[in-house]
């Protein structure tokens, strides 16, 4: 298998996270390979967002190791870390668009930060990224406050893609969207993943999203990843959380 050649995109070993007395993660192990989509599922408040924040280096784990693209997350000096951070894109749960910038400037922001891309190139790239997430060029002038929930997610996705990331981290990309929009957004993510050949880690609550998107399902329960196998195999597992999550009521829809 090709897997053996390149190092895994994300590798977590025994990650521990504690807020005060609240032990949220206790020895999380997870490996994400290039080109694959891994869905992270777990109950509300089980620490999915927290785990994602550890992967992108917003939180620092109390114990354990995190490797991105084969290198320790915190290795190297400031510039090395900055370069590492530019290799992934993140879609936050609420979009986290810069409210003082319009849509176009939001997408252009990371490119401008790079300091080497020219304005006419940025305009081409913004137009392209907008089209990529199925928005119109006219939307570039809108302010984040003028966008609907679905559009916020699309713009945030376009911004996450602006730096041509090799890894995309999505926190509940379909929450807050109606089933129609949510299905369209999932199709969009899948198309982009195939087209760009990137790895995707996404947090989701939605069984429909799971079945149409995920290659593997990582189940976060009891403060650790209890399994990370394909959806079919996950359904066979005997665990109270999995049985509730994929149980009879979930199977209905």
């Amino acid at each position: 298998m090709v897997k053996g050649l390149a190092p895994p995109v994300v590798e977590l070993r025994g990650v521990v996270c504690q807020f005060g007395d609240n032990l949220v993660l206790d020895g999380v192990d997870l490996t994400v390979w290039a080109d694959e989509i891994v869905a992270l599922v777990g109950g509300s408040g089980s620490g999915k967002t927290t785990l994602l924040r550890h992967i992108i280096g917003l939180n620092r784990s109390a114990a354990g190791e995190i490797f991105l693209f084969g290198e320790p997350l915190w290795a190297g000096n400031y510039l090395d870390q900055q370069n590492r951070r530019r290799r992934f894109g993140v879609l936050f749960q609420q979009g986290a668009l810069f409210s003082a910038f319009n849509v176009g400037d939001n997408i252009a922001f990371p490119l401008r930060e790079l300091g080497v891309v020219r304005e006419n190139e940025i305009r081409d790239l913004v137009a392209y990224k907008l089209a990529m997430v199925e928005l119109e060029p006219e939307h570039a002038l809108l302010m984040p406050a003028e966008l609907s929930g679905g559009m916020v997610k699309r713009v945030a996705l376009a911004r996450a893609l602006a730096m041509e990331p090799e890894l995309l981290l999505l926190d509940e990309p379909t929450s807050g969207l109606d089933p129609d929009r949510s299905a369209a957004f999932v199709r969009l993510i899948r198309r982009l993943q195939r087209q760009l050949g990137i790895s995707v880690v996404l947090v989701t609550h939605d069984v429909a999203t799971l079945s149409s998107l995920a290659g593997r399902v990582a189940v976060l329960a009891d403060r650790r990843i209890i399994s990370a196998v394909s959806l079919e195999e996950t359904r066979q597992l005997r665990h109270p959380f999995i049985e509730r999550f994929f149980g009879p009521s979930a199977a209905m829809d």
Partner: protein
Amino acid sequence: MARPSLEIDARGYCRLTGTWTLGELARHLAQIRLQLQAVPAGSPWRLQEVERLDSFGAMLLWQRWGRRWPRELEISEELRGVLTAVAAHSGKPLPRPPLFTPLAALVLLGSLLFSFLHHARDLVTLLGQLTLDLLFLLRHPRQWPLKELSANVHKVGVKAMPVAALVGFLIGVVLSYLSAMQLEAFGVEAYLVDILGLGIIRELGPVLVAILVAGRSGSAMTAQLGVMRVTEEIDALATMGISRTIRLVLPKVLALTLVMPLLVLWTSAVALLGGMLSAKVQLGTSFAFFLEKLPQVVPMANLYIGLGKGAVFGLLIALVACHFGLRIRPNTESLASNTTASVVTAITTVILVDAMFAVALRNVGVPL
């Protein structure tokens, strides 16, 4: 990852190798741009050895080619797909924000006038709404936002006491020290009590506290209302049938109006204490003499003027703060500009109104 590079090979082809991705290109971009420019026009291109091409690399090439496919191009189907996708959206200008023209300048000037009128109208509306709310509350005493009122009194009054005392004390010391030096030169040290008494009680106390409170509590009120707007908390209140003016604005305005005279009293007292200490040290004026002379040379009217000004300033600061807070749009820029505007307007208004007080009350409480 191989470094992106290009060279002209033996057959005259421009041969590209390496990973042409943003991450790699960004490091050598200046050099790559020069090399791209140096490729002779009409050269054939060979992209088959490119390991990876992302939309940035594709856009770079496409712009170099003048947004046309070169006459001769050797490329894999996969990379051609990437280029085609980028080409489809290249050169279509994004809509630009409208430019600034002389007409726009004129419009801006006019809109400044209108925005001033809007501010004035909104402020009057707010004041009117608060009056109506008060009338409503008189008829429905159970609806009084007493908890909010007391919380605000604590926040804007009690918590402001230490800093007000510190500032007042220092100003008192400095004022006393500097005046004493001048008075000593003329041999009229006894007038120090007049200067300090009148200056602090009538003028300095209220204005000092107003500026302090505008910076401290005015900005906080504006920012709080603004963030509540941004997070839709104000809308949430409205859907629960709770009036935002009664629950959010009125307690702030009432609290500040009530508390400001007390703060003025407190600050003036501490400032006089500072002045008295300084006088003792510099001139040897005894506390007993100072305290005995103060009521004789400063008519009582001055105290009422000082406290009255405090109440008016408090009302103005809270009104201005809430007015700007309710205008904040849901973005960080608006939050910042309205908070600044709130403090600046409040301080300016306070000083303007203080000048009006000075003119209107020029015959009251000044011993001739």
